[in-house]
């Protein structure tokens, strides 16, 4: 019972890191980026490549996955995404689906279509057991590691957004790009950095998730719905919204798959529709935005 809860929390945390970048691009830049999963997949494959072909240690691969996808994200933002910001949502959706198609086919071509696995380092294998009987809490070390990383990330990001000059510039640029530009804020550069950072987070999440979510070329489509649910339900104007939404989704999914395996996805989707009908702007949005 508690073990399941813990697994759900770990899963939710992972979803949070994966979707946070999407929440940033979607909420802060008002861009529906369905290609987000492709960045996560890229991060996962960077990890796999570095660990298996080049023998890098696991811990070194995580930052590498972050940096590599952030660079790719920056390059794409510069060249492809920027002209799309001003276009209607339908265009953005189709554009990013197109990108995802390309990414999926390219990875399929380069890496093969089968699922890949990585060997986590020995110190992350095994699990702790606390308590006994009904209330046993079994915590896989790897999941504990994920939770720790994600909590640290969430706290750090909240601090950056709320407390630094960059954070306030970003919020200003999002609220009104024209006025922000008039005040001398380099809006383009702020967006570029934000996009790169969001992609990097996706890459990091993808790398962390290889062991739990599995990784194959269909990854972007398989998890696209989950990312979107986190952002749509959590609202995109804060970090806490997606965090809570991701935790709820993770726990609901793990419990659903355990107790009613055949209805697992069903519950999640019905919940999502119900929440969106109730609060179309998401659960945790400030009313007056946009």
């Amino acid at each position: 019972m508690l073990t399941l809860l813990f697994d759900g929390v770990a899963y939710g945390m992972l979803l949070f890191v994966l979707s946070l970048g999407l929440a940033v691009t979607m909420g802060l830049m008002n861009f529906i980026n369905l290609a987000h999963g492709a960045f996560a997949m890229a991060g996962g494959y960077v990890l796999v490549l570095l660990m298996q072909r080049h023998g890098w240690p696991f811990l070194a691969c995580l930052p590498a996955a972050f940096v590599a996808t952030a660079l790719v994200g920056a390059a794409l933002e510069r060249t492809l995404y920027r002209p799309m910001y001003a276009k209607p949502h339908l265009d953005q959706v189709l554009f990013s689906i197109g990108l995802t198609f390309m990414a999926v086919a390219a990875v399929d071509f380069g890496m093969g279509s089968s699922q890949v696995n990585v060997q986590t380092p020995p110190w992350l294998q095994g699990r702790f057991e606390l308590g006994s009987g009904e209330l046993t809490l079994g915590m896989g070390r790897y999941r504990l590691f994920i939770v720790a990383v994600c909590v640290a990330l969430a706290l750090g990001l909240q601090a950056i957004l709320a407390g630094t000059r960059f954070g306030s510039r970003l919020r200003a640029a999002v609220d009104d790009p024209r006025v922000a530009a008039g005040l001398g804020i380099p809006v383009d550069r702020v967006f570029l950095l934000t996009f790169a950072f969001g992609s990097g987070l996706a890459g990091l999440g993808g790398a962390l998730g290889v062991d739990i979510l599995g990784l194959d070329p269909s990854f972007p489509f398989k998890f696209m719905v989950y990312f979107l649910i986190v952002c749509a339900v959590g609202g995109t104007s804060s970090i806490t919204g997606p965090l809570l939404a991701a935790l709820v989704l993770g726990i609901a999914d793990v419990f659903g798959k355990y107790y009613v395996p055949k209805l697992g996805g069903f519950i999640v989707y019905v919940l999502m529709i119900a929440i969106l009908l109730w609060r179309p702007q998401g659960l945790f949005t400030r009313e007056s935005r946009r």
Partner: protein
Amino acid sequence: MSARDMSARLLAPARWRAWELALWAAIWATPFVVPQHAALINEIAILALFAVSLDIVLGYAGIVSLGHAAFFGAGAYGAALFAKHVMPDPFVGLAVGTVLGALLGVLTSPMIVRGTDLTRLMVTMGVALVLLELANKFDNITGGADGLQGVVTGPLFGAFEFDLAARTASFYSLAVLFIVFLALRRVVHSPFGVSLQALRDNRLRLASAGMSVNARLAAAYTVGAAVAGAAGALLAQTTGFASLDVLEFHRSADVMLALVIGGAGWLWGGLAGAIAFKVMHDVLSAFTPQYWTFWIGLFLVVLMLAGRERLLRPWTWFGRGAGGGGGR
């Protein structure tokens, strides 16, 4: 501008043009000229019908939907189950599929009148996913992942059997497409259709002109759903098979692709897009069977980067691009 000028301007696109008649003649000629490709013609006709239904929802009413497969799937399963358990007559089955699609559209239409583009995207996708899960769960009815087999459709008019070469099927699907096209052509040029386009372009203004926005959105959504249900029913009847595939996400994405290639916002867009998409699919997958999605994706990215303003005025775009038959 006087009232007469205005009504003349609104009525002008409703007139049949020579090229439209010529195109329909050409379309009807294809199953006679190339009977060996009857199966492909059937597929294209079904995709075109599906794309036209999305056109009503997306191109005319401006509702961004990533879950249009929900209605397609409802129609397909409805027709298949009806043929299997009740009676095999194709026309009654088609009507059942259409009505099922329409019912589902009525039921879900309150969900799409609220919220932002993102919410609509998620809700439509969610509906399709819920149906997919349900179809998967109730595998004693739907056959689950194996699909629903043993669907036998009776002969058309009691005389023309649905054969393996799909000749009957191609005529049947083309006829349904043609009739629906004629009906929808009337709808989109009616005051209702014009008000839909006004709504798409400026919702606030239409509301302040005293028209009920939500009722119009719901009506358009239902019409689109019904036609999508008909398309699904056609697929189930002509292939004698229905599987979870009819509800999958890629079906919603494919039809949107087809529509966008053809240009949303005019009925020919669905037809042209379906032809272009299928031809592109066939050529590309003959060229690289496994990686054809890469080229579709590339095409989409380039199209989106290069030509939104052309998409808004597809007439100019298609005047050059594919006036001769919709192919690109």
